[in-house]
């Protein structure tokens, strides 16, 4: 039977499947469906410093094979998250990743500091991609230099491994990835959602109060796979591939594109046991294709 281990260098995961931020709640909600120990790791819903209510509904919209969301990062704030983390950590030994959000560099740091000191937290994921901002708004992942600044700030002030999560909505994702790497990021996760628009013809209005929203799900897979390949070519740190992953075959495609591990997003929302199915399918497909371990195919395209 194939070896599913995914070695990020700073941590070895039992398998490469990591439910993504915002699509897995705080983990505990899934205990009723399966044992969290089955997962490679999981990422908690993004957290800001203070408690937030999130955006006015509607917050999601269905598109062909895709999902637009504008949740607005509702959540309990960094301090509030501590108790939630302790609770779920008592029920699983799977590494917990927290998704660190911020309105500015100081807030990123504040959130990171609060969570960095918790032994229950295995890694921080810095969410510098803010898909739910109205055009004109800006966020660090928009520019390599801003990215470098915030990543460096966090690396200087925190001890946990730092994953930097990138947005696909920028001119040149590889250059932002390289900036993160230079500033000391331990891994890159990519992609966050693609900016899209939904309109309500009847009321001649945008569907979302925030106007744009973030597109996820199988619709974006070919676009995400391209970006993951580009980023993996551009950096030497591990890349965690994200975007429309629905099957074990998708997992292996992302690994083949150069990812060391992957995150499952929308699939968790529409199929609560989806990530476990995907782990099983990955294993079966590896056995079928006689792939002994992920490193054997990672980035191994015959071009």
């Amino acid at each position, binding site marked *: 039977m194939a070896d599913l281990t995914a070695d990020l260098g700073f941590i070895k995961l039992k398998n490469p499947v990591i439910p993504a931020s915002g*699509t*897995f709640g705080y983990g505990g909600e899934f205990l009723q*469906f399966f044992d969290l120990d089955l997962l490679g790791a999981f990422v908690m819903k993004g957290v800001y410093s203070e408690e937030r209510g999130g955006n006015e509904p509607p917050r999601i919209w*269905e598109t062909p094979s895709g999902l637009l969301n504008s949740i607005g990062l*509702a959540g309990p704030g960094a301090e509030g998250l501590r108790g939630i983390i302790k609770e779920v950590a008592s029920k699983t030994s799977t590494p917990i990743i927290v998704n660190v959000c911020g309105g500015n560099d100081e807030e990123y740091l504040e959130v990171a500091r609060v969570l960095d000191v918790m032994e229950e937290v295995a890694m921080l994921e810095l969410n510098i991609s803010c898909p739910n901002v109205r055009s004109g708004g800006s966020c660090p992942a928009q520019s390599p230099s801003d990215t470098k600044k915030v990543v460096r700030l966090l690396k200087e002030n925190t001890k946990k491994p730092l994953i930097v999560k990138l947005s696909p909505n920028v001119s040149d994702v590889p250059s932002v990835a390289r900036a993160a790497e230079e500033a000391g990021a331990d891994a890159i996760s990519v992609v966050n959602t693609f900016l899209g628009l939904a309109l309500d013809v009847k009321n001649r209005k945008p569907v979302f109060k925030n106007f744009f929203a973030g597109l996820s799900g199988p619709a974006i897979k070919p676009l995400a796979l391209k970006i993951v390949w580009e980023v993996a070519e551009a950096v030497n740190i591990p890349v965690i591939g994200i975007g429309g992953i629905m099957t074990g075959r998708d997992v292996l495609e992302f690994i083949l594109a150069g990812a060391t591990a992957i995150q499952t997003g929308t699939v968790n929302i529409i*199929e609560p046991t989806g990530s476990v199915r995907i782990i099983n399918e990955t294993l079966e497909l590896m056995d079928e294709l006689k792939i002994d371990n992920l490193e054997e195919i990672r980035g191994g395209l015959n071009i």
Partner: protein
Amino acid sequence: MKEEACRVITNTIIQGRYYLMKLESSHISENSKPGNFVMVAVSGSNDPLLKRPFGIFKTDPPYFYIYYEVVGKGSELLASKMTGDLVMVVGPLGNTFPEYENENILLVGGGRGIAPLYFAIEQYSGSNNLSLIYGARSKDDLLFTEEIGKFALKEKAFYTDDGSGFTKGQVTTDIKEIIERNGINITFSCGPDKMFESLNSEIGSLGISNFVSMEAFMGCGFGICYSCVVKGSDGKYKKVCSDGPVFRMEEIKWQI
């Protein structure tokens, strides 16, 4: 709460665009109470992507029923399922109407909102004195009147917006009299938001306990995507799927 492939036993038109689907699941049929709902996969493909929420209409272990209106592409796909087909279902989800004994409870149903109320009649009519107000657009949208007739209800009143078949009016038309006449101290209602708003202005301040079972756009149905929110009277958002779908009327911030 489980995710499982359930076999379609029957899927039949009740009337017009309204269907009743009988599905097999020991887990869901044995663990559901009035108010609970399920998320149903309407296709095996990525389009439509989301499961659709439907209230549990009744149970008969190992079977349970959903009653649905064909309103868009998801419910249309559901209507095309045949006996023997397997559909993925997550459930039972959400909270339930509270359980009482020997109380005078009024059920208020608007349109397809009858689903969880029918289940409540079936489950609670033995142990409580139930009354029912049920309204819909026209007589073609007011279903199960015959089945409902088989249960012992203290009073039942049917209304249609256009006056076809039944008394012309809304569920609120005679509600105060009905509450008084039957010594109602608790209401369970389910219907469109507009109905809840009228109910709130009519009976919200009578000092009785009002429970509403709400609908919202849903992604997951089990509390993790934060998409199904409604504004609470405390100004905070509540998730319809996991904080609800049943709320005390005063917990919600109504428009009017």
